[in-house]
């Protein structure tokens, strides 16, 4: 373990960059096994890192920052503020663990999903590699400008995945998404520029005491720009306009990656700024964010209940579920609030990946992307329907799923501080989720109309059904093993 070359946090960035470059060199349609082997190793690395952080870290290279860092790495050996520091605390370790745990089953899923010759799958593997590398790099970075570069890496890879091999609808959705993500990171970059201008550094750890000591008006504007840009990238209501077409129109494995991980990255960053350098400033906006979150829950659920297409329904459900994340901001003084937020990130990440994967199976089997077309699928695709149901259970927040744990903690933190309104919103959101989940399940249990299924349900590879099931089941089982995750969050903070 003391070998300087064995540093999980560094390899979590180098490895996906390496295998995506290799997949690119191997050529069109190649690289699936490279990706799966790489992701399996990364999952192991993320686990090792979480164990290390949970145990208190080894304080390698550099003192503990005020961010409560457990494991740090000074790239180039210079150290902040001259160089760039990487830092992993409980929150980052949790995000890394989630990223690899969602990506690995989805890679197995995608290998079966993109049959040879599918134009959407030609460059899928290197694109996915850059996406995962960008996410991992974002979660470990402790430098605001470096984070800008990782944001662009994630954003461009995500846009390319939406558009790859698609028709006019996908290309239009990708363009909408591209402009949203570029304006979002542009606003973030301007905020970083203002911070650098004010203090002369972009290192998170160096900035913390400086901002707390003295924050001129310019820093407030910088904070506002950064958070606004990241809200746009997280698709918080009313900035959600780009999400449903992009997540609803992309191929199922891509939708799953985007909904489960990509939108969480920008949310993570808001949280990171909130708990870190902008600590003194942001609480002024806490209720604004919570109100937008509540609006997202109601608007997203309403749209999901009325969606015609299956994947649209799931995409609107993402808009709603992202709303929960913003409910925690007024509650953050209570320790349960952060735990609730991270549990919700995990619950939604696993469940939504499972749900999109299951939807992909149903669409492949029935040949159409509509809720109405699902009639009769329960007999042919029991595993997939079960997966969809389990994922739905997590989204509704039923015990013993991780979604239940997340909502329970939000409500606990809300009631402890007398903010019962937040508890009411959280409960109402669960009921609305039940409406759209049961809308799908009810349709699937209906008998197929005569003649409509003339072609029958097409056979679907087992790997598709079972990887969807694994993700959905994980979202439920995590509810039983949530304590370990919560302990990790306490570490290094």
């Amino acid at each position, binding site marked *: 373990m003391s070998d300087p070359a064995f540093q999980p946090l560094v390899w979590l960035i180098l490895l996906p960059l390496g295998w995506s*470059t290799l997949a*690119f060199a191997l050529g069109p349609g190649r690289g699936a096994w490279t990706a799966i082997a790489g992701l399996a190793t990364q999952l192991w690395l993320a686990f090792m890192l979480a164990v290390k952080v949970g145990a208190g870290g080894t304080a390698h290279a550099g003192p503990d920052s005020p961010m409560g860092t457990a494991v740090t790495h000074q790239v*180039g050996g210079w150290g902040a503020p001259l160089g760039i520091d990487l830092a992993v605390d409980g929150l980052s370790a949790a995000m890394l663990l989630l990223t690899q745990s969602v990506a690995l089953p989805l890679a197995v899923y995608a290998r079966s999903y993109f049959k040879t010759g599918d134009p959407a799958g*030609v460059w899928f593997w290197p694109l996915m590699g850059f996406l995962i*590398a960008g996410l991992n790099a974002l979660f470990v970075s402790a430098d605001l400008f470096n984070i800008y570069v990782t944001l662009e890496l994630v954003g*461009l890879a995500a846009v390319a*995945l939406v558009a790859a*091999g698609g028709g006019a609808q996908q290309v239009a959705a990708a363009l909408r998404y591209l402009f949203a993500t570029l304006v979002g990171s542009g606003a973030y970059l301007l905020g970083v520029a203002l911070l650098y*201008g004010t203090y002369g550094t972009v290192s998170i750890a160096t900035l913390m005491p400086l901002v707390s000591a003295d924050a001129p008006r310019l820093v407030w504007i910088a904070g506002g720009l950064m958070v606004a840009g990241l809200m746009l990238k997280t698709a918080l209501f009313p900035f959600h306009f780009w999400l449903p077409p992009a997540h609803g129109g992309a191929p199922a494995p891509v939708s799953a990656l985007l909904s489960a991980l990509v939108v969480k990255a920008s949310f993570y960053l808001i949280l990171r700024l909130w708990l870190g350098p902008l600590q003194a400033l942001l609480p002024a906006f806490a209720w604004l964010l919570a109100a937008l979150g509540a609006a997202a829950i109601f608007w997203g659920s309403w749209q999901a209940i009325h969606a015609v297409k299956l994947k649209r329904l799931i995409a609107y459900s993402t808009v709603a579920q992202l709303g929960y994340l913003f409910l925690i901001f007024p509650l953050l003084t209570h320790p349960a609030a952060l735990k609730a937020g991270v549990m919700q990130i995990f619950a939604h990440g696993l469940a939504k990946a499972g749900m999109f994967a299951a939807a992909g199976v149903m669409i492949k089997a029935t040949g159409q992307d509509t809720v109405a077309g699902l009639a009769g699928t329960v007999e042919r695709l029991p595993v997939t329907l079960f997966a969809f149901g389990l994922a739905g259970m997590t989204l509704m927040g039923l015990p013993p799923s991780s979604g239940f744990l997340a909502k329970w903690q939000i409500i606990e933190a809300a009631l402890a501080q007398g903010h019962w309104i937040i508890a009411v919103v959280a409960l109402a959101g669960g009921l609305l989720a039940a409406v759209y989940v049961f809308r799908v399940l009810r349709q699937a249990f209906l008998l197929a109309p005569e003649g409509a299924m003339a072609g029958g349900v097409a056979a679907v590879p087992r790997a598709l059904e079972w990887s969807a099931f694994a993700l959905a089941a994980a979202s439920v089982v995590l509810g039983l093993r949530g304590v370990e995750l919560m302990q990790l969050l306490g570490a290094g903070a």
Partner: protein
Amino acid sequence: MKRMVVIAVAAVFAMVLGGAMLDLPLGAIDLRIPVAANLGESGVSHPVTAVLLNYRGYDTLLEIAVLLLALLAILAVLGETRAATPRAAHPVLQTLVRLATPLMIVVAVYLLWAGAFRPGGAFQAGAVLAAAAVLLHLVGLSPGWNTPRLKLRMGLAAGFAVFLAVAAALLPQGALLRYPPEAAGALILLIESALTLSLALILAGLFLLLSRDEEAP
């Protein structure tokens, strides 16, 4: 209506932000001091190159990944299309470009070499080479690109791969991209040479790949 509102909001934003900039005291930290103080160990004497490839070399590593990704994204978005067949330009123009190309290569090599101690470096050198490739295409002396074959893909990825490999190989030194001071100059030159080649190919590729969908069915 929407138009007026957006323009008004933008104007107010610019005024508020501009106003907040006017009476800003100097920052608490001045990175010019450590940049200059460590220049001796950085392996180059031009401060911007030192920041770009040493102090903040990790940013540059990820930035090359973004550029390679953009090329890959364009390949994925446009799919299989036939390359545009260039129309042959006037012979005088062709001769001019033929003469200019070796000159541009010399300029690129100079820029690459100069980057160590004065303005210049891999990006500028790569851009000049890319411009030469685009000119050759525009006057009809070289064809457009199809889906790149193995050799071309290796060339496109080489710069990033070398950079990544050096970054990883330096881990036993204690950290990612931690150049030993005595070898820093040579390693940076190695990375920059590989980057120049790949950047030229990628930048030219952005143009040559985009200009091909002309002939798409």
